[in-house]
């Protein structure tokens, strides 16, 4: 997954100003940066949210340009966004939605019927520490913040992605939940050779999900790149450390 010289506007406001990021299969790339630096904009733009207008630059997945594709077509290429604020869909019973999602994706299909699927789902949900009763509720309907995040990850497992974008999946999570979510992503990524883009403010998620590369955003641009140690440095000394030197 490759982003080159990406410029993005919301309305008249220029948010991204020439971003360069790439994630290879099997790689974990962390994107850090202060609020308003354009991290979430990158996530939404990658999936084709209609509010975000690309004015320049290119996004590619496995060598294929995706700029003109609709969100569902991008998902069809294996892109998965775990949202910072997942939407609730009233009455869309979670377990039925997940089954439809499973059927929709053409990859990794081993389960044939909903009964078998349900069994598999229950095991995975339990591992994540997701209250099973929620599976019979509307998708994210009256879920707590932490439950929504777990549901994002459960959807990710059903989806079998090639590229995952985690948009502040760690915000509002306690340590225990964070650990479960991060290790689950790590396992899936390692097993399926998934490329992971982790958008975060904190180093703590990277303890469980080790970053191969860290990219720091400032004012819609990449200000620094480095290895795992950069994340720690940024957390300890702040984003603007370079400017303070």
């Amino acid at each position: 997954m490759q982003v080159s010289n990406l410029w993005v506007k919301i309305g008249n406001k220029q948010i991204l100003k020439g971003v360069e990021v790439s994630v290879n299969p099997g790689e974990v790339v962390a994107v850090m940066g202060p609020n308003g630096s354009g991290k979430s904009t990158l996530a939404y733009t990658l999936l084709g949210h209609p509010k975000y207008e690309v004015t320049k630059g290119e996004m590619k997945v496995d060598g294929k340009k995706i700029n003109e594709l609709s969100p569902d077509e991008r998902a069809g290429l294996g892109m998965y966004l775990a949202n910072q604020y997942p939407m609730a869909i009233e009455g869309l019973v979670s377990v039925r939605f997940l089954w439809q999602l499973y059927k929709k994706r053409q990859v990794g299909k081993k389960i044939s019927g909903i009964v078998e699927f349900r069994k598999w789902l229950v095991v995975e949900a339990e591992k994540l520490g997701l209250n099973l009763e929620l599976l019979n509720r509307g998708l994210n309907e009256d879920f707590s913040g932490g439950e929504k995040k777990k549901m994002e990850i459960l959807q990710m497992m059903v989806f079998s992605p090639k590229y995952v974008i985690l948009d502040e999946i760690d915000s509002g999570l306690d340590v225990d939940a964070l650990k479960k979510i991060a290790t689950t992503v790590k396992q899936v990524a390692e097993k399926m050779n998934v490329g992971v883009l982790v958008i975060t403010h904190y180093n703590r998620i990277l303890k469980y999900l080790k970053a191969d590369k860290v990219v720091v955003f400032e004012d819609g641009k990449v200000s620094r790149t480095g290895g795992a140690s950069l994340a720690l440095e940024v957390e300890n000394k702040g984003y603007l450390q370079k400017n303070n030197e």
Partner: protein
Amino acid sequence: MSKFVAKKTAEAREVRKAIGEYKYGFSMPENNIFKAKKGLDLERVEEISKMKGEPLWMKNFRQNSYKIFESKEMPKWGADLSQINFEEIFYYVKPSEGQVDSWDKVPKEIKDTYDKLGIPEAEKEHLGGIKAQYESEVVYGSLLDKLKKQGILFLGMDEALKEYPELVKEYFGKLIPPTDNKFAALNSAVWSGGSFIYVPKGVKVDLPLQAYFRINSLRMGQFERTLIIVDEGAFVHYIEGCTSPIYSSDSLHAAVVEIFVKKGARCRYTTIQNWSNNVYNLVTKRAKVEEEGIMEWVDGNLGSKVTMKYPAVVLVGRKAHGEILSIAVASKGQHLDAGGKCTHLAPETTSRIISKSISLKGGRSSYRGLINIASGAKNSRSKVVCDALILDKQSRSDTYPVNKINEREVILEHEATVSKIGEEQLFYLMSRGFSEEEAEAMIVNGFIEEIVKELPMEYSVELNRLIALQMEGSVG
């Protein structure tokens, strides 16, 4: 216009082709036994009664009802009915020699119709009994032997009048008299067909009984009459479905349904109304519920040009409960004016109305409801929830709730929401790989899930499919 990048896959085209438009819009050649001249007068009313060989009291009831129909003004408070031309309608069409109990004995074009509608199949799979009405008469009827042995009566209304005249006389028109409204008067004058059900004390009918109403010919008026008596402690689930061919001129369906729920009994009445968009559907439905009895109306309205229908419960016994769950999907050229009425006449009675309406492609849906709590109905409770979903700017939704409360010690709740499908919700589902149409259908089906889950499986699948069909092409 969709904000999302347009997508025209081969798959989407295939689905569109396969679904087609209104699936039930076909018509069959007419091989009627008898067709009354179009238009209505006293002579025509007498002719119907004579052909049916009815007792004198019914003949008089019809004549009297016709006079009431003539004297009543057209209702002006609801949907626009000014285009109905009573002179152009055929009021009585007899399609076959009479009701039979084997599909092989049903005339071929009629049997073909029901085959296409999947009725004999449904009968085999999950029904306890069935009545198939074609034009003005019930042409086929069945009831499982085990249900017959329990003393359950499931007859065509005309058949019941012949076989159980006293029972019919005791209840017929007692809950909805011809004076109730102009269309109840019309029905009372020219009624034909419909179902009669009696469930004896304590008998719980474990499989639903279904009636299927089909209009076939041009400018047909269908006026079936249904009477259900659920005796003490008994239970029955009755389902009705209806379809008709697409014509450019209008048809009229004006039914009357009366239900008596005795002490501790329960009745559920489910409707999947899917008339073609040239039918005026003007129906009066009412249930009288005695002590600790339960009446549940589950009302799905998808078709018709105009619907005016407000299933009612009259709670006459202590702790009686009434429930009206209603879905209306109003698309292009449709005005669905639906809702419910709950009248509390005894203490500790409870009622609930849940109305979900969807308006799209310029369609209009209205909720019209009445909660009437009489003096002395102490500690009664009522809850009304009406939610409207509007899919585009051309469509419209209105709410007309009325409360008449003459008792202080009651609890009344009313919730109403109007919403549209949000871009964020669509994006969320599309980013999971679902097309915009699929995402929209998921949101709409979620919106009505609370009611759909009350339907038997076969019908909830059918309803979701029909709604997807209605929404076809609503995106982009």
